[in-house]
């Protein structure tokens, strides 16, 4: 399970995505009634439609048949839909697709784009400018903005914000799942001991507090081991892919800029000259770099960014916040387990415990866009939400005093919670048949003291 875990997780995410992108393989024939005559061409085999076809979507111009006649018995015709283009299409900018079936959104979008492009061509043509299409292609510009962070050491590192967000997001989610998963394992263990009645035997040999802590620590270690295996696995994977496919990443980013974008042929292959960096005095430009011609593509950038996120800080803080976040929640889960007689009764008691975690996930979504804002700050410091939210902020870089503050609050709350939990646990594990409610638990707490 520990080894397969990441694969299974990836599958859960990727397989649905794959299914979503699969195109419907049915051949769809769309009849076009083109009253504007702007989309019809006359060739040797009769009228054809100008609109580009896809592998599965085809157009057919049929003249002389009215729209209304298609409505009767449309299903027998075998056509997918009827595209009606009115005469005044340029002015109205509206056409209609008719069918007895619900028309696929892909088809609608394809038709929309194809028609837009065609009409744009026509409109351009009316302006009567020589070579207008070519000019447009040359003018088209695509700028790529890279993010680079200045580090304390006077160096630069790649820091694509998208990547950082992704990592933060993943970290936050992982913490959420780990805490939830292992916390409920503790709860289930407590319940099992209660229902199997072995609790009496154990408690005649050890103090309830020892039993509770033993269980929490034991499950926690399992979680930690699992996590360490995953980390090692992922690092090896990333490292392997990096050396196999992107060995150039050892270059200084600025040199990469010089060697790539400006020296590759521009999209239009125009004869015009783009001022080269080499003509400006500063940077030494060697022949090699000029001929590099490789674009710094997206994947390389991603890997460089990943490298830049200090793994020690990431892993260290992940372990810390997972550990203490888990310990805090595990104590609460132990309390719930001791208060009920079976697993189904846990539902009502779980809500207040789970709520902060879910809240943290929502905050995470906002914090990821604004990691230094006050919302993100407060929720990364309040102990119940901090494990998730702080982990989201860490890839962006967090002032060390904030991390210390958050960490100490978390540890303090954990200690307090364990003390409370111990008292409730001691009473709860030997009580059967009582109503499950927080009022009952409160009574046990006072009773214990």
């Amino acid at each position: 399970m520990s080894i397969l875990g990441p694969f299974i997780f990836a599958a859960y995410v990727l397989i649905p995505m794959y299914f979503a992108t699969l195109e419907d393989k049915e051949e769809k024939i769309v009849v076009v009634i083109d009253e504007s005559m702007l989309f019809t061409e006359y060739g040797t085999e009769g009228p054809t439609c100008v609109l580009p076809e896809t592998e599965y979507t085809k157009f057919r111009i049929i003249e002389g048949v009215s729209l209304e006649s298609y409505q009767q018995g449309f299903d027998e015709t075998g056509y997918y839909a009827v595209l009606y283009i009115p005469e005044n299409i340029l002015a109205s900018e509206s056409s209609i697709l008719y069918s007895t079936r619900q028309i696929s959104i892909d088809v609608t979008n394809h038709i929309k784009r194809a028609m837009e492009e065609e009409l744009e061509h026509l409109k351009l043509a009316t302006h009567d400018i020589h070579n207008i299409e070519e000019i447009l292609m040359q003018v088209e510009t695509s700028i790529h903005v890279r993010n680079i962070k200045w580090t304390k050491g006077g160096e630069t590192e790649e820091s694509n914000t998208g990547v950082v967000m992704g990592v933060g997001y993943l970290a936050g989610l992982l913490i959420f799942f780990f805490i939830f998963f292992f916390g409920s394992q503790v709860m289930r263990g407590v319940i099992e001991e209660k229902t199997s009645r072995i609790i009496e035997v154990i408690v005649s040999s050890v103090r309830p507090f020892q039993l509770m802590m033993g269980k929490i620590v034991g499950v926690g270690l399992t979680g930690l081991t699992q996590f360490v295996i995953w980390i090692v696995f992922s690092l090896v994977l990333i490292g392997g892919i990096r050396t196999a496919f992107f060995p150039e990443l050892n270059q200084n980013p600025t040199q990469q800029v010089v060697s790539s974008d400006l020296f590759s042929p521009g999209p239009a292959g125009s004869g015009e000259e783009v001022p080269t960096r080499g003509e400006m005095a500063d940077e030494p430009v060697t022949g090699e770099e000029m001929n590099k011609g490789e674009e710094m593509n997206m994947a390389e950038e991603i890997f460089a960014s990943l490298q830049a996120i200090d793994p020690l800080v990431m892993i260290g803080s992940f372990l810390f916040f997972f550990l203490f976040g888990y310990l805090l929640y595990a104590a609460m889960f132990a309390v719930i387990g001791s208060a009920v007689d079976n697993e189904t009764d846990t539902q009502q008691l779980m809500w207040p415990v789970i709520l902060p975690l879910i809240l943290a996930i929502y905050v995470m979504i906002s914090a990821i866009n604004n990691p230094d804002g006050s919302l993100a700050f407060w929720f990364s410091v309040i102990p119940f939400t901090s494990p998730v939210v702080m982990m989201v902020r860490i890839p962006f870089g967090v002032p060390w005093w904030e991390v210390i503050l958050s960490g100490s609050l978390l540890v303090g709350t954990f200690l307090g919670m364990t003390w409370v939990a111990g008292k409730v646990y001691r009473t709860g594990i030997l009580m059967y048949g009582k109503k499950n409610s927080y009022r009952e638990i409160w009574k046990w707490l006072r009773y214990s003291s």
Partner: protein
Amino acid sequence: MSILTAQEVVKDFRGHRALDRVSMEVPHASIYGLLGPNGAGKTTLLRIINQITAPDEGSIFFEGHHMGREDTARIGYLPEERGLYKKMKVGELALYLAQLKGLSRSDAMKRLSIWFEKFELGAWWSKKVEELSKGMAQKVQFITTVIHEPRLLIFDEPFSGFDPINVNLLKREILQMKNNGATIIFSTHNMASVEELCDHITLINEAETILQGEITSIRENYRTSKYRVTFTGDQGKLSRGLRDCFELEQVDQNGMGQQATIRIKEGYGSQDLIRNLLDITNIKAFYEVLPSMNDIFIQAVTEHE
């Protein structure tokens, strides 16, 4: 010298008092019975002795000193509700529980093999607990209770759920342990076992002790001057020849022959009855019938309420 003394123990649960100034003295190397109707407070008292719950008032002394956490290593407790970790392997669980009591792993292994063989559980060592039948699981639990050779054993309803063969097995083990110097306290409804095994008893009803002491003296206190005669000869002759001061309650025919149960009225003694019987029948056996613990139990409880 008592191995265990409970002094004026009081335990309240919200709304009702479970134990009301209960005191008990358990002598060394005795078998002590804790009796009482359901809900009387027996399990509560046993839990307090085992330090699972604490008394509100009163104290427990073990071997002369205030009972503390360290003493749990010298006590073995078998609770009424049997329970084991279902998904664990039998052997692993037994080892774990033995080590919990302070045994080293190798020590535990050695002793467990002996016990498992004695109880014929050897084949189940590697199986999961949930695969055991109820009786086997109880045997396993019994083993884990006694494995560390505790000085004091506490069994809460040990015979419930056992078939007669296992009941016998348990009785033998209890007697064996007593011979080895251990003290055993057990609570039960099985009055026959009380008669067979116990030296002392305490009878609790509604949070109070209503009867306490050595079994023989208690039974003597409750004696009703009944005697049983195993005889041969004519039954009619016996009943006709019996003096008025002797009441013939019933005559049974069983494997030992004919048995007459006779009650002696106030003022007369067993010697008088024997003299009477010598004239009217052939005596094969003659003994006093002490009331059964069952009868005493019922009588004491009903009188108390």
